[in-house]
């Protein structure tokens, strides 16, 4: 492992998470990508999906509805309009997100976008099933 990268998850209401991460998998608009330390500067929008954060001690999964990610030097900042940690989510919230994702699917214009939203729906569905 080539060191860690500072990962910040910021929602409009507050900073949700600020940790040193080894790797972060981000559901980017043009495909999932993994951010490791020393990643090239990128700005990307996000699609609904799950961010997987690997810190030296733990793994976290966070659901984001939409937002964008900014990688600059040693820092990854994700600005998410709506985000919650998957483990802490309650089923009602998940169902609500699922509905929204389905709406997003109808609005999706390109095959790529549809593919991603479909994946997000599948991920959410799995979570809902787990919770039930």
């Amino acid at each position: 492992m080539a060191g860690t990268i500072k990962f910040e998850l910021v929602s409009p209401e507050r900073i949700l998470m600020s940790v040193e991460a080894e790797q972060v998998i981000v559901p980017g608009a043009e495909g999932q990508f993994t951010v490791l330390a020393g990643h090239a500067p990128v700005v990307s929008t996000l699609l609904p999906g799950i961010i997987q954060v690997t810190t030296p001690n733990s793994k976290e999964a966070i659901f984001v509805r939409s937002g964008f990610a900014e990688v600059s030097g040693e820092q990854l900042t994700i600005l998410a309009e709506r985000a919650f940690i998957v483990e802490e989510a309650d089923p009602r919230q998940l169902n609500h997100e699922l509905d929204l994702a389905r709406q997003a699917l109808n609005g999706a214009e390109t095959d790529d976008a549809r593919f991603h939203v479909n994946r997000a729906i599948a991920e959410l569905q799995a979570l809902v099933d787990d919770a039930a």
Partner: protein
Amino acid sequence: MPSLKELRNRINSVKATRKITKAMQMVAAAKLRRAQEAAEASRPYAERMDAVLANLAKGVANPENASPLLVGTGKDDTHLLIMMTAERGLCGGFNSNIAKLVRQNALELLREGKKIKILAVGRKGADNLKRDLGNYITDRVSLAGLKSVGFEQASEIADKVMAGFGDEEFDVCTVYFSRFESVISQKPTGLQLIPARLPDAGDDAAEPDNGGAAYEYEPEEDVILDQLLRRNISTQIFRGLLENAASEQGARMSAMDSATRNASDMIDKLTLSYNRQRQAQITKELIEIISGAEAL
């Protein structure tokens, strides 16, 4: 001269009022702290957003093709004024100051021959403008029954704004709210949302510390800029709502503080005249007894 009984009743009633205003002041103080915390917690998001936007806008190659959110529709015939006020009164000049600013700007725009539309957030401002500008209020958003403003409300307002802009209902959009400067000072402010007024990209403070390396953009810069500008609208509206919430509580706190002090002054004065009159009555009774005894 009111009788002793009347005076006593008045003192009791003012005391009851003072209790209420005191309680309201304390509630406002507690809410103010929470509102301030919320405003502070929202800052990192807005700052990041500003920084990225400024960077992107700097790179816009040809302004003609840029998003209308950034450069406008090319005309400024119709203005949308978003007026943010509170749902409740009893907070000093808070609501009327915002309404005054909106009215002033609205009248000026009308004089210039522009069309205006007003989106009223919160009941109090709409009530204030109802008489002379009521016809221009095209839409209302109620914040009643909410414990604290969340991003959901901001999104809701932003969706309305974006839908209206998409239908070309207006060309320029300005949001009016009260900027929270301190507990005793809240300043009604207008902030132009569309076309966006971006922070100066040349500002060094806004530069991210990546050693000036060029960003890669996914998807294309134009697309991302457009999306960010959309998001920026809800962010700015959210900021306005939060500032407004803090201002409201600050204004209410100082208004209720002076009301409490006023009530205390009044109680002192009334107590003084009550005691004086009581004393006068005792003296009068004594004189009656003494002169009665002397007459014997």
